[in-house]
């Protein structure tokens, strides 16, 4: 495998891991439930995206053309917002505590 491609794959892997780490760190650091929702729905999509891209580039150089990694991205994009929405609804149902400076009100329905 060419050095340039090796560097590219390594860079993508590092970038992906970094974003996955930041997303998980958000879960730990942000002050209330609703804010913590944002970490896993977004910072991780780019994380997984880079890892998938790295995997595709790596396996395409070994002669084995693999596009089924794209499916991981597709399913993630479909499921992440759905689960975030369900979590938010559940949180509103049990009146999860929120930071005092939050403006606007969650719904009761």
């Amino acid at each position, binding site marked *: 495998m060419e050095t340039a491609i090796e560097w590219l794959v390594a860079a993508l892997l590092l970038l992906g891991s970094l974003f996955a780490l930041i997303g998980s760190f958000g879960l730990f650091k942000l002050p209330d439930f609703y804010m913590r929702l944002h970490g896993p729905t*977004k910072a991780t999509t780019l994380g997984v995206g880079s890892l998938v891209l790295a995997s595709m580039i790596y396996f395409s150089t070994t002669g084995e053309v693999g596009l089924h990694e794209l*499916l991981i991205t597709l399913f993630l994009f*479909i499921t992440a*917002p759905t689960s975030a*929405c369900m979590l*938010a609804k559940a949180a509103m149902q049990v009146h999860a505590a929120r930071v005092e400076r939050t403006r606007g009100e969650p719904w009761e329905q």
Partner: protein
Amino acid sequence: MNAPGKWFPHPWLSLLLLGVWQLLVNDLSAGSLIMGAILGWVIPLLTHAFWPDPPKLHRPWVLVRFVFRVLGDILFANFEVAKLILGASSRLQPAFVVYPLELRNEFGIGVLATTISLTPGTVSADVSEDHRTLLIHGLDVPDEQELIDTIKQRYEKPLIEVFECSTT
């Protein structure tokens, strides 16, 4: 004897299933194509009862442009949210924003809610029972009206064009 609409109630879903099946088996052969075609034919027929009102795509190219715009925004959203997470959390201004929907198509609303959840610092939390408003939680919202205007211009307008054939 039968209209094509009866055999293929969801042509786009059929095509999507065929494509997904090809990616799943990861091999383009006559066998997998036939299997994909059968799945693409049978699954929409079996699940037809769950969505009686198949979305009609009026301007597919607008949808393509929309998808690329959203992918670009997701890229930015990640850097943006990473910055917000790593910065001082006491400076964030979280807010629940009530977003008035102009879009009436159910599938379109679903796509819009998904898009909002995937892009900068916003998660769609709920849709009202009459499907006329969305509740959005923003991680850092200095100005509610600005957020509503951005979503309206960037995401809802193109979706209205695609799903409802309006001229606005």
